[in-house]
């Protein structure tokens, strides 16, 4: 196909609206490094966004900046505590960006949930399979396809999640095993039990479908754990969220979202494997 014939596809692709088959074809062409089409795509994005630039700017509420800064500072604090506890973790990486992307993905779950998850993982694992380095060691950072997952015969894996807290202090970790479809979910910071109100966990597929919700039984400390069944092909899942439901039988999540998390997919080649200690 000639580049000029791709113009319409490029305009749709710039907005991420091309149907998957066509998008794939176009991606393949762009991957050849065609300068004409890459430039056209960039220009298309900029042109589309003139529609956004035309809008009258609308100031978000002033609390939003404070909220963001408080999230950021909480994360930084956790990172610092974490790195002072395990300096080798950070010496593996070079730039701040890499450090953030590698570590922060799980840092909230791994650190704030550290006690819960480490105890839980410990119970699952036979002694010989205990994660190298224990808490703070590389086992905390396993992602799908990570070759390090194969080092241990048990292959228990903590799912790499990118958490987007909707309410401060809610965190979770998901631990499972590729050979079973059961995944153990650990949460903290949930609202402590109130009559007739339930927290539910929902899985979302990349197609935007919501898989049935799991009721989380929250204890008086605001923590909960649950076992969820996931489809064999976990790559179909995009993320999960925790909501507050007035009705435990609700089949669709409410708008009261406590936490959302996206599954982080990583290709094995993209992972730089720290040396086992």
């Amino acid at each position, binding site marked *: 196909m000639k580049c000029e014939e791709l*113009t*319409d596809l490029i*305009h*749709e692709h710039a*907005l*991420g*609206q*091309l*149907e998957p088959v066509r998008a794939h074809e176009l991606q393949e062409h762009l991957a050849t490094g065609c300068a004409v089409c*890459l430039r056209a*795509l*960039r*220009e*298309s*994005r*900029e*042109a*589309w*966004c*003139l*529609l*956004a*630039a*035309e*809008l*009258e*700017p*609308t*100031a*978000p*509420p002033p609390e*939003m*900046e404070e*909220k*963001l*800064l408080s*999230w*950021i500072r909480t994360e930084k604090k956790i990172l610092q505590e974490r790195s002072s506890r395990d300096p080798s973790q950070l010496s593996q990486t070079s*730039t*701040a*960006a*890499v*450090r*953030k*992307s590698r570590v*922060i993905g799980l840092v909230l779950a791994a650190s704030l949930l550290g006690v819960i998850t480490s105890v839980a993982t410990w119970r699952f694992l036979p002694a010989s399979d205990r994660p190298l380095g224990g808490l703070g060691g590389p086992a905390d950072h396993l992602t799908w396809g990570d070759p390090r997952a194969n080092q241990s015969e048990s292959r228990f894996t903590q799912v790499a999640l*990118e958490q*987007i807290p*909707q309410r401060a202090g809610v965190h979770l970790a998901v631990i499972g095993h590729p050979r079973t479809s059961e995944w153990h979910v650990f949460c903290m910071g949930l609202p402590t039990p109130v009559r007739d109100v339930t927290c539910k966990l929902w899985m979302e597929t990349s197609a*935007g479908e919501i898989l049935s919700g799991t009721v989380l039984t929250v204890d008086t400390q605001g923590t909960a754990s649950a076992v969820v069944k996931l489809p064999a092909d976990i790559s179909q899942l995009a993320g999960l969220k925790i909501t507050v439901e007035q009705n435990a039988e609700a089949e*669709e999540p409410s708008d009261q*979202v406590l936490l*959302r998390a996206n599954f982080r997919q990583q290709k094995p080649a993209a992972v730089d494997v720290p040396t086992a200690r």
Partner: protein
Amino acid sequence: MIMESPVPSPESTDEDDPSTTQSEDEVRWMAELAEGSEDAFVKLYRSLSGRVFAVCMRILHDRQGAEDVCAEVFFELWRHPERYDASRSSPHTYLFLVARSRAIDRLRHYERRGIGDNSGAEMLPEFPTLDPRSHPETIANRREEKAIVQSALKGLDENQRSVLELAFFEGLSHQQIADRLDTPLGTVKTRVRQGLILLRTRLAALLSTK
């Protein structure tokens, strides 16, 4: 060349360096953000949150939803500055597109759950439109940018404008727009193509005559 900074401010926004434009500032802040600079994050937030939020409001017509999406977009920017690729777009375009995509995801969710007609005009905001912390000269620059863009958009005819808006703010594909407007697919494609070309060329012309 002009498309690399579609909304350049012709005047300075940086007191120290009169040659610095808004887009150059953004690029510099993005680089600093990638090194973990909180200060750069705040600058980007103050500079772009008004328009990111406006995009969310325009798509969702729901203040709470728009706030959630806007906060999410900036938090992700902080966490993953490496996702911005300078060869693909300018920083503000990147942020507008991320915000647009997230807001449309949420809109689809509302639609699936049958949350009524969100197009009610009464839900549209009537509140201050610019961050009061912005410098007066920044505000002046924004007004000027906006006038330029509006002038560029005036060059579109109603048909071109409506297909562009349906695609951008409602997330409809060419085919869906054709169905919605009961117009042949080929016509929709032509209108999108011509609309975008017109926007680009008019913008370039307006900037060069300044």
